């Protein structure tokens, strides 16, 4: 039952990720997707192998890594903002051919 909201949450993340232009909004969408996946881990662990703890620990480490990743991403975004005064992904297209 709990998988259904997680699934919807993931799809919201996907929608946000491909439509939003603000990089921070994209990052927020990313967090949504990550959380949905975390919930999946916990749920599968709880329902299918209740005596094991792997899913829980996976979620735990995923949270830690997500925190690190967010911090770094925000550092990059702030740096970009400082140099380009803009954090719209459509304008940040220097990395082409």
């Amino acid at each position, binding site marked *: 039952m709990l998988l259904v909201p997680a699934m919807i949450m993931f799809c919201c993340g996907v*929608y946000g990720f491909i439509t939003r232009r603000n990089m921070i909004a994209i990052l927020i969408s990313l967090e949504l997707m990550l959380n949905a996946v975390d919930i999946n881990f916990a749920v599968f662990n709880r329902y299918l192998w209740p005596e094991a703890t792997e899913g829980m620990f996976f979620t735990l480490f995923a949270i830690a890594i997500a925190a690190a990743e967010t911090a770094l991403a925000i550092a990059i975004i702030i740096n970009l903002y400082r140099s380009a005064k803009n954090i719209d992904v459509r304008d940040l297209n220097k990395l082409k051919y």
Partner: protein
Amino acid sequence: MESVGSIILYIVVALAMVVFSVLAVTTRKILRAATYLLFTLFAAACVYFMLDYEFLGAVQIAVYAGGIVVLFVFSILLTSRPGHNSERLSSKSRVLGSVAALAMLLISGYALVSRCALYAAKPALDTPTMQQVGQSMMSTGHGGYLLPFEAVSVLLLACIIGGVVIARKR
């Protein structure tokens, strides 16, 4: 679902999760999006509590709600002028995004329904105590997570240094 209370709780949590995540990706005010994200994360924490993973729920609140969202708010304040709305999305990109999300939903929902995973009963479980969690985190061998623990600590260190290096003024 055993009791009416838990059903009500489930409905509340599920509704909160869905509504707030939808709002988080559709609102045009970026600060609001961060706030909706916070609520979504709280709902996710509730899910962990419902699954009897209290430690996980606590971590979720502490790290996500307490750390990451604060970071988001800081960065939003640093990078955008107050009251500035992001421009309206073109309908074309909205439609395309919805199509993609719905396709995603369709495929994973089909998988979920076809496996009849919707109505599975929750097996009984002793909630893992803090002591158990701490012991497996610090032990090696089967069921021990010392190596990933250390790896994550190194990753965090690298992340701190990387953040400092990237963000420092030149």
